[in-house]
């Protein structure tokens, strides 16, 4: 997809400071990145992290951008030398395990990636059961297809928000990708390549408001994907029976640096990554028009069209509200029944954008 979204993401990373992105921005707060796949660049992970308070930390999900070791890194995709990859035991909770950690500087080359192809075949990873019905992962018909690959996603239940990284990667970076997705089940499939390097960071508020982030590991908890998918579909239908959008609707906050307000998308309405990224592009197109070289000449015309048809409907003003994280959100993305909107509607002058 389009490079500007990369740019968006980088800026989002550095500039968003709301609590919901604490996991990305909290570099200096002593949180350690843990790669539960056992792959991490040892140099980037402070081995003193293997400390007694790691019980919580070890289970916190920290998602880094592909190619980055920790949140503060450059978000450029970097091709890591596989030789630098080290394997650490998972959940090194006890100090005694430190010895195992640091002494085993092994080169892990094989098995860097784990069963991400599982998302490809529509079985969908266990963790993503909430998303499954209209999964915004790629559905890959065959394992060797050339469609863009899926992505890591993570879910932080709770008001700390969820960091979800959608990305496709080009073949060259696939080797490095895996190790950068700590505690995340979804791995992309190195064989099926040809994805464009599109990355977006999506920040979301979980509706349930449950507490701290939970690590998600491939294949854990050991529940058949069929079961989680069916449950998700059943939850969704049952909520529709009751007449309100239930936990099945997954609204995810999307921000773009420089935009005066954020948007929310219901991930369940998208069945492919392609759909989602086009939708996001359309959403933010009114803000990106005019940036040099970001869209390229080819895209300009479609953008002006979408700009004209923009939500703003020619008005100078849009209605926004401030949600619990303190972000300005465009009204209308989330169903009216949602608490968000009830409480926080405000009007904002939007004439700057036009």
């Amino acid at each position, binding site marked *: 997809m389009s490079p500007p979204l990369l740019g968006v993401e980088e800026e989002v990373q550095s500039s968003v400071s709301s609590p919901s992105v604490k996991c990305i921005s909290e570099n200096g707060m002593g949180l350690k990145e843990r790669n539960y796949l056992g792959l991490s660049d040892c140099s980037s992970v402070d081995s003193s992290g293997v400390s007694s308070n790691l019980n919580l930390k070890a289970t916190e999900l920290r998602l880094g951008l592909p190619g980055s070791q920790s949140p503060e890194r450059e978000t450029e995709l970097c091709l890591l030398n596989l030789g630098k990859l080290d394997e650490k*035991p998972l959940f090194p909770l006890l100090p005694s395990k430190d010895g195992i950690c640091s002494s085993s500087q092994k080169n892990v080359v094989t098995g860097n990636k784990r069963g991400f192809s599982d998302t490809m075949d529509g079985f969908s990873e266990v963790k993503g059961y909430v998303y499954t019905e209209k999964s915004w992962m790629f559905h890959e018909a065959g394992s060797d297809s050339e469609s863009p690959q899926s992505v890591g996603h993570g879910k932080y239940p709770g008001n700390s928000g969820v960091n979800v990284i959608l990305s496709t990667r080009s073949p060259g970076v696939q080797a490095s990708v895996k190790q950068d997705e700590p505690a995340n089940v979804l791995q992309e499939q190195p064989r099926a390549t040809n994805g464009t390097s599109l990355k977006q960071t999506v920040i979301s508020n979980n509706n349930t408001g449950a507490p701290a982030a939970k690590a998600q590991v491939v294949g854990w908890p050991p529940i058949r994907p069929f079961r989680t998918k069916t449950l998700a579909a059943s939850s969704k239908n049952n909520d529709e029976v009751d007449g309100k959008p239930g936990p099945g609707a997954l609204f995810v906050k999307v921000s773009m640096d420089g935009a005066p307000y954020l948007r929310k998308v219901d991930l369940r309405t998208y069945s492919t990554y392609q759909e989602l990224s086009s939708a996001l592009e359309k959403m933010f197109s009114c803000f990106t028009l005019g940036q040099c070289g970001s869209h390229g000449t080819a895209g300009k015309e479609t953008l002006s069209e979408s700009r004209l048809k923009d939500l703003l409907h020619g008005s100078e003003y849009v209605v926004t509200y401030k949600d619990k994280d303190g972000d300005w959100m465009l009204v209308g993305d989330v169903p009216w029944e949602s608490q968000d909107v009830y409480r926080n509607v405000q009007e904002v002058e939007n004439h700057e954008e036009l």
Partner: protein
Amino acid sequence: MNYFPDEVVEHVFDFITSHKDRNSVSLVCKSWYKIERYSRQRVFIGNCYSITPQRLIARFPGLKSLTLKGKPHFADFNLVPHDWGGFVDPWIKALAKSRIGLEELRLKRMVVSDDSLELLSKSFPNFKSLVLVSCEGFTTDGVAAIAANCRFLRELDLQENEVEDHRGHWLSCFPESCTSLVSLNFACLKGEINLASLERLVARSPNLKSLRLNRVVPLNTLQNLLMRAPQLVDLGIGSYVDDPSSEVFSKLKAVIQLCNSIRSLSGFLEVAPCCMSAIYPICENLTFLNLSYAPGLQGNDLTKLVQHCRKLQRLWILDCIGDKGLGVVASTCKELQELRVFPSDPFDAGNAAVTEEGLVLISAGCPKLNSLLYFCHQMTNAALITVAKNCTNFIRFRLCILDPVKADPVTNQPLDEGFGAIVRSNKSLKRLSLSGLLTDQVFLYIGMYAKKLEMLSIAFAGDSNKGMLYVLNGCKKLRKLEIRDCPFGDVALLEDMGKYETMRSLWMSSCEVTHGACKTLAKKMPSLNVEIINESEQLEFSLDDRLLVDKMYLYRTLVGHRKDKPEYVLLL
């Protein structure tokens, strides 16, 4: 030496039905081997790559029923990549070419294609029963072929398969002449079906005992179906949503009262809790209740329902029933033998629906409990020790603490002592799954006490090779060992290589096994297939012996390397 003619011996063998026993019988002498092999009708193959269809056909010409399992168990949790294998096609092709009069095919974790199903349906005139569990690769077109061509079909049982739904006309493919159905389970299909065809099919199937519907079958159709099939023993309800004051609902209530043969109830994929009261009359007779796919029922709905189920032997339920609800189960269901508690929200740490308390209550109230699958947020050693005191009949004990390395929250100790108590007091334990914070100590206990253990699943546990060695040395009956993310390495793997010939398979992923060790093992043990699943693009890296292997799957086999392995599998 035989003092009896072969026919007499054969007649005696007819009474020996268990696979294990028949296998033993065949080993007694050549004569018995010969008699047994000609009279064998049912064969179970736990790993489809351990033997070829040709050899199977050659040995058992009288084969009527075949059970095949394909992918390793951890494939259920996305640890095995997509096209790893487990294709049923070569089996069906070989059987079709032969003179085998196949009547029953049961598959688990295999890849099935529409073409295979069609070939199956056309090659065996007496084909009666197809059971597919956790399979994939086929669409409703394949199912349609089975429906259309198997004239004497008795059983079509699709359990938890990934089926591409072509908006089924498949049900209409059952010919009007088909009246032999005994069991029809299509709960896992997601698409629409022709409801009128379904009603007609049920109406002309007087032997129908088991019917499990998918979610698109509405309540009024259910009512019609039950009217036509009051003899049902096993019912799976699809959608159970209606206005309790409606006429359809009152008719349903009346009809349900007549279905006093129902012993097994499942489904409720969509449910309006207020309608559940209609079910109460049949609850008294239920022996199996599966509400694990019914998230629409809340804790109190479940509790109210369970209070009516005094004869329940097997209960599968979601954890929203809560510890209190489990207490109600414990005081009501005194015949309970099997309990499975699934998480309704596996990734939500905050919602502690069931804890160790629920399990303790169950263990105290249900003395016949022998099979457990329990997902919870925490467990304590004290609770496990209490459970071990209360229940000594466990055959299967599978505990999954959602945080895989969580210690006892009260004492902050690992759960070694708790699991130790379980294996010590349950001498018949055949299957065990561990979770929580665990050191090598728990494996010492397992090796010492779990003498009948056949299957062990380990994740994020142990400190050193000793852990794995305790198990390999101590568990003489071990058949399947699956390990992920444990610090077990080459020393443990290579200590007793002959052991693996006594086992069906070993899975190790994200452990500390090196490539070199796997090569050594493969070289020394030609009767094992050692597969390295390597998903990295850089295949050449795999040649370095010191590199750690991410996923290794080894299994005993009589036929050497398989020919259908994908590129990313390295067969050593």
